[in-house]
């Protein structure tokens, strides 16, 4: 909606991961029951989204009307600064959440062992995707967002305070990133450079799915995830090559992606 190519989304994800580790450690020290650790984890992830207001009001609003190259450079600078900031606050060593990953046990599904926590995260992702869909299509704020994305000047002429809308939308997006980072952390470890990896994968996802399309992002993520898994099982050397081969094919044959809107 803001027409900003935001590379810093990966950094928000990393920030959420670190904040999640600290929140869970604090919760454990305070004697909270392990079964409920996901509550402080998710709350901390959402709260970390507040950094979005700072970035949007403090930096991005100055480059909305500038060339995309400025926006890319600015958000890339944020990526590098955040990486250093994370290292300064949490130290250079990877941080993880002990054994909470297995708190909810494992399930046998179709002959495979699946941690219940993974199912919780999948369910949470679906709930978030549906909620965002509902927000966009069924609420007044969603209609304003879509109208502003379609024609910002017209929306402003009709009395919409775009400054507030942009700040809210960007903070919402940031909170989704930080929440994602927090939710993934029990299964992995927080590393200051984890955001960069996510940006690269996210790039493949949005190119395949189509820029600006929620359905596209959903399908693109599934395509990338499933293809990686198949490649690793069948021919591991092809893992990355296969994904970027598809990215190139999409860019050449269908530049708007699978679900992206056709260029005007």
């Amino acid at each position, binding site marked *: 909606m803001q027409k900003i190519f935001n590379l810093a989304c990966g950094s928000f994800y990393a920030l959420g991961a670190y904040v999640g580790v600290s929140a869970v450690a604090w919760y454990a020290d305070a004697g909270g029951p392990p079964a409920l650790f996901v509550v402080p984890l998710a709350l901390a992830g959402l709260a970390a989204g507040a950094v979005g207001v700072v970035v949007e009001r403090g930096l991005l609003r100055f480059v909305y009307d500038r060339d995309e190259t400025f926006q890319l450079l600015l958000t890339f600078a944020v990526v590098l600064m955040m990486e250093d900031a994370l290292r300064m606050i949490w130290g*250079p060593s*990877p941080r993880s959440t002990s054994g909470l*990953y*297995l708190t909810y046990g*494992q399930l046998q599904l179709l002959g495979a062992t699946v941690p219940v926590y993974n199912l919780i995260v999948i369910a949470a992702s679906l709930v978030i995707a549906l909620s965002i869909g509902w927000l966009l299509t069924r609420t007044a704020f969603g209609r304003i967002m879509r109208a502003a994305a379609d024609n910002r000047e017209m929306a402003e002429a009709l009395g919409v305070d775009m400054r507030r809308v942009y700040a809210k939308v960007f903070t919402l997006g940031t909170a989704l990133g930080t929440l994602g980072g927090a939710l*993934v952390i029990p299964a*992995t470890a927080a590393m200051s450079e984890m955001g960069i990896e996510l940006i690269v994968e996210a790039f493949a996802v949005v190119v395949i799915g189509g820029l600006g399309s929620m359905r596209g992002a959903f399908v693109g993520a599934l395509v990338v995830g499933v293809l990686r898994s198949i490649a690793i*099982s069948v021919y591991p050397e092809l893992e990355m090559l296969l994904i970027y081969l598809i990215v190139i094919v999409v860019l050449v044959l269908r530049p708007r992606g699978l679900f992206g809107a056709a260029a005007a």
Partner: protein
Amino acid sequence: MTPVDLHPSRRQFLTLMGTAAAAAAARFDARPAFAQGPPVKIGVLAIRAGIAAPVGAAGLRATEWWAERVNKAGGILGRPVQLVVEEESNPKDTVERYRKLVLQDQVEVVLGGISTGVTLALGPVAEDLATPWLSWDGTTQKGVEETMPSPKWAFKSVDNEVEAIVAGILTPKYFKGIKTVAGIGNDYSYGHDCWESYQAVLKRYLPDVKFVLELFPKLGVTDFTSHIAAIQQSKADLLMCSFWSGDATIIMKQAAAVGLFKTMKGVFTTAGGVHDSLKKEFTPEGLLLGYNTMYFDDPKASALLKQFVREYKAKYNEYPPYECDHAYFDAESYKAAVEKAAGAARRWPEKAQVVKALEGIEVESLSGRRSWREDHVQMCSFYQGITTHKNSYDFVTISPVEVVSTKQAMKPAGAKLFDWIGSWKI
């Protein structure tokens, strides 16, 4: 060239004055022997960003600990040690910083270098600039073969593949009846070389063993779910993993989530690099785990190691990894070489004399006695063992502890690795 400049610049003069003032203050404090002469500048290259930042931080912390001790004890030949720290990053920039250390800061020696991708480029520069360079963890190997067999100024780390060779030697001892092996390592030279070396060694002990899967995810990956599924599918008896950073912790966690090591044995050649993140909740007992050249919880630890571990934990709230030992050894061997070359006259030696004295020198490092081989490669011992939960920490340690010397597990000077492994009498 006389290393001690008789015509100091303004900055050097101020440093001298500062040192003199500190020395005077120390006398009034009635402290024991305090360094008197002009400071001896020691360049340090440390990785401080990216995936290897924890390793770089450990090396730097140990060097700072060493410098503090040396200065308290009177410095080197009465000169206090002054560290000049620069960042190790990519080869091009690191080479520039190396030149800056030698030409602009005029250091007596450069310590550090972790990534072999970087140190491969540093080696020839060290030779050009005629200043001793003692690498912490980087070699001048291309793959498993040496590119600088007879350097004058460059002193290199242990060959990269030694920990995989040690694991290959210990695998048949602890895991009887292994028939199939899967391997996973990072997709760069180290990961591939470790896997090749491990296979070559294991084949010597178990000629019928089959290697059924090899996976090389790139460095920095944080999700190994698909890799673990492929490892499970391979139904291998044993998994060999050469991860050494946060990815070792992550794969351990994600493997535990699907019960991988309930049916499979595991060898983690260098996961001791992140040992205190291998929590008991997800790291099983019975894995072979390598700590590289220093095991912080060594039951036979020297007083020096015990003191270092205690003070490191108090200062950083972490238990030190092996990089501390490489760094401490480099610094301590430099000091010993200067003192040896100075002789009874205690006259500060030329750099070339220091380099000569370093060859073959043996000193006490954190892990015990360590030395420089005549061809400028570190000699030491490697610590590996079977993971146990029987300790007072919240992470695994090893028991029993196997100590294997580089005399046994590293190719001799000038030898080709696979020819050498093939020549073993087993």
